[in-house]
């Protein structure tokens, strides 16, 4: 079945030359986009058009274009990763838009994710949170045989659900408080649901949460916006686990 062609679209996009620049919206028009094209392919086409018009192309983050690397990060028509469920921006296809529509594209808006240029933001804060304890402290070598620790199927599945986090930052962008609780909770559950990860579980929850606070992410007020926009469908029940883990850690101090 041939995809429909969108004859004309208006693209209203955030332009900001660097972190110091104030930034503003600009609107461009684009013609003849196939509904089977991805959203980022539409931006490629727009960029090549801008180059021919002697304009600076729009900078946006992207890499794998198959929904797994977590690089792409666009706020489209008021939604993190745009108008579709359980996908990243690179998996969004143009068939989701209407002829003649004005599509608004913004970067992630969060104090902890400053804009670098146009739609590209700096997510180094996520790196710092994980460096604060998002790991199991094992060295290379000297570990036991992989089958020496049986792990119940359900526990591994739950760990895997949480481990699916791609670190894109949609949860922060979607949250009115710019909270990173879902991101932190996903890592705490991923490792905490496994016996290997229990050893450092308390310390991990404590240090990651305190790093998150230090970096200026907001608190969680259970609006569930993060869960709705998470491209990997990570559940906020992990936040409940994080809270339990964190409280036990604090109580045992």
């Amino acid at each position, binding site marked *: 079945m041939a*995809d429909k062609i969108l004859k004309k679209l208006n693209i209203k996009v955030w332009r900001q030359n660097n972190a110091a620049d104030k930034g503003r919206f600009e609107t461009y028009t684009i013609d003849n986009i196939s509904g089977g094209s*991805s959203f980022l392919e539409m931006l*490629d086409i727009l960029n090549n058009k801008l180059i021919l018009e002697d304009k600076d192309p729009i900078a946006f983050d992207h890499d794998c*274009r198959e929904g797994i690397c977590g690089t792409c990060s666009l706020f489209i028509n008021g939604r993190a990763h745009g108008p579709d469920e359980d996908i990243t921006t690179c998996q969004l296809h143009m068939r989701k838009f209407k002829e003649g529509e004005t599509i608004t594209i913004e970067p992630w808006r969060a104090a902890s994710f400053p804009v670098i240029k146009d739609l590209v933001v700096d997510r180094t804060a996520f790196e710092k949170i994980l460096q604060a304890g998002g*790991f199991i402290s*094992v060295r290379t070598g000297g570990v036991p045989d992989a089958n020496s620790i049986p792990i119940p199927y359900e526990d591994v599945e739950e760990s895997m659900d949480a481990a699916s986090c791609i670190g894109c930052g949609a949860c922060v962008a979607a949250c009115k408080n710019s909270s990173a609780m879902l991101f932190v909770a996903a890592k705490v559950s991923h490792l905490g649901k496994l016996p290997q990860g229990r050893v450092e579980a308390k310390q991990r929850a404590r240090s990651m949460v305190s790093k998150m606070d230090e970096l200026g992410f907001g608190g969680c007020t259970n609006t569930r916006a993060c869960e709705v926009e998470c491209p990997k469908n990570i559940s906020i029940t992990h936040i409940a686990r994080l809270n339990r883990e964190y409280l036990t850690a604090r109580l045992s101090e």
Partner: protein
Amino acid sequence: MSILDSKIPQGPLAEKWSRHKTAIKVVSPANKRKLEIIVVGTGLGGASAAASLAELGYNVKAFCYQDSPRRAHSIAAQGGINAAKNYQNDNDSVYRLFIDTIKGGDYRSREGNVYRLAEVSNNIIDQCVAQGVPFGREYGGLLANRSFGGALVSRTFYARGQTGQQLLLGAYHALNRQIAAGSIEMYTRHEMLDVVIIDGKARGIITRDLVSGKIKRFGAHAVVVASGGYGNVFFLSTNAMGSNGSAAWQCYKKGAWFSNPCFVQIHPTCIPVHGDQQSKLTLMSESLRNDGRVWVPKDKAVAEKLRKGEIGPGDISEEERDFYLERRYPSYGNLVPRDVASRAAKERCDAGYGVNAEGKAVYLDFKYSIERLGKNVIEARYGNLFQMYEKITDVDPYKEPMMIYPAIHYSMGGTWVDYNLMTTIPGLYSIGEANFSDHGANRLGASALMQGLADGYFVLPYTIGDYLASEIMVPKTDTKAPEFEAAEKAVTQRIEKLFNIKGTKPVDYFYKKLGQIMWDYVGMSRNAEGLTKAIKLIKEVREEFWKDVKITGEPNNLNPELEKAGRVADFFDIGELMARDALDRNESCGGHFRDESVTDDGEAKRDDENFTYVSCWEWKGEGLEPALHKEELVFENVKLTQRSYK
């Protein structure tokens, strides 16, 4: 020739690695603290190497072009990782994994390297589990396995369809732990643009800070390049948009020889090309061939109706379906290696049996497995892949068969390395997909993850000591040295040159042209006439590029067009070398298929008498023809036979 000493240890195959480890030098903890190592790239190879080296006590600087090490393209590997654990009691062993990998590579890899890979495969699984990789498990709590192409045993460990992601997160966690400990300095959004050689040894790199545009110098006692493969030379591939061959190519231009560039892997199960606005291709994991059956209609007229959209796959009866892999290869069936499956799909489509509008797709059908196992089981195994397929194509693969077609996926060729993973430049190492060493002419599924982690966790941390032991008296590299000065100047001039062309066409215009040439003449089947033509055409497009490309924006700001221009400029050169290499290798082996070398029944025909060698290309200078050297492959344990999966 001494420069091509592969340093494969003497002695029985099974003892080579352990003997070698005993023989090589070790650096004391006090001296490790004085030594600096640069690691370029943070995929499975780079991240695992950087973490392991830092744990040993070396000072490590790691670099990636992405905004986080976690985004390296290893993350996209879906199906799994092989290991010879024999947990399934199906008679697997290190030797069997070795044999499968050598045979899968069509006898164009080194016995010693491949055996070592099989040997350390089990340690990798142990390591990953200890790090918290949530591999799939049985209800009893022990690890589960699945089957993959090219093997008759079930040895692939997996984390749903996201195995690469989970393994990379494991290595990334280890990397983060060392960053936090202060033993790794991590530089994200930095791209390596040159390697610096002083007195014949690798002493550092030149990078561009992709945010500020600043050109920077970094010195070290050794440089490890883990920058992945060059599949993006085809424009459309399953690689990430930023994946590139430039780091490896700069090494080549500084004297590191480049091996088997024509060996690239074409993956049989990708979502077919759609229209002319496409920017990249999406892979559907090989693991799907465990439960999916590949077919096209038996009758051309029926295929014609499918292409016109007059009928759907459901309208075609069982008797009218040609399960051509099961028909041609009864013993391996749908699980033949990737190169065989790809060529078989192309053969059917070229013969007029393709099933999509473009005639370039075959079916991968799950109907039979869903009937046999139930939808739940299939959903549990491949849920995320099915979802991905539906999002892209708008077709529900639980109801209709997937449409698939081969696409460029992986490069087996790469920088030449010896058994220690050192290139022909002392102190310069190459690991993972960036090197050529372990997969011969075709890589088996679930072996890329195995090799990246083997190199990074268990091989390089040992072998690099052998070189660094003689560097302990060498002071910290002075980045004010004239060699750094010259390298930085060359990098800056190249950027200025690109800006100053002020042509009329964007980078993509030239890039797409290159990709088309590569796919048409250096793709799934190649011949002397086409390859000669490709070399000529590539030169023409390159010339046009350097006269007419238009780069907008500023050099001292984030500028993705500039980044792309530099990478594409190198792809022209890489593409040309691939065509030259393919032209030299007048045999069919693995992923390299020459129309001139086929058996009577149309299968690839190897020519062991004339081509049992690794081609090693030496850069001779801009505009000059490279020199070809040959490393003869010696088989002491394996008997070379014509590969058969029938």
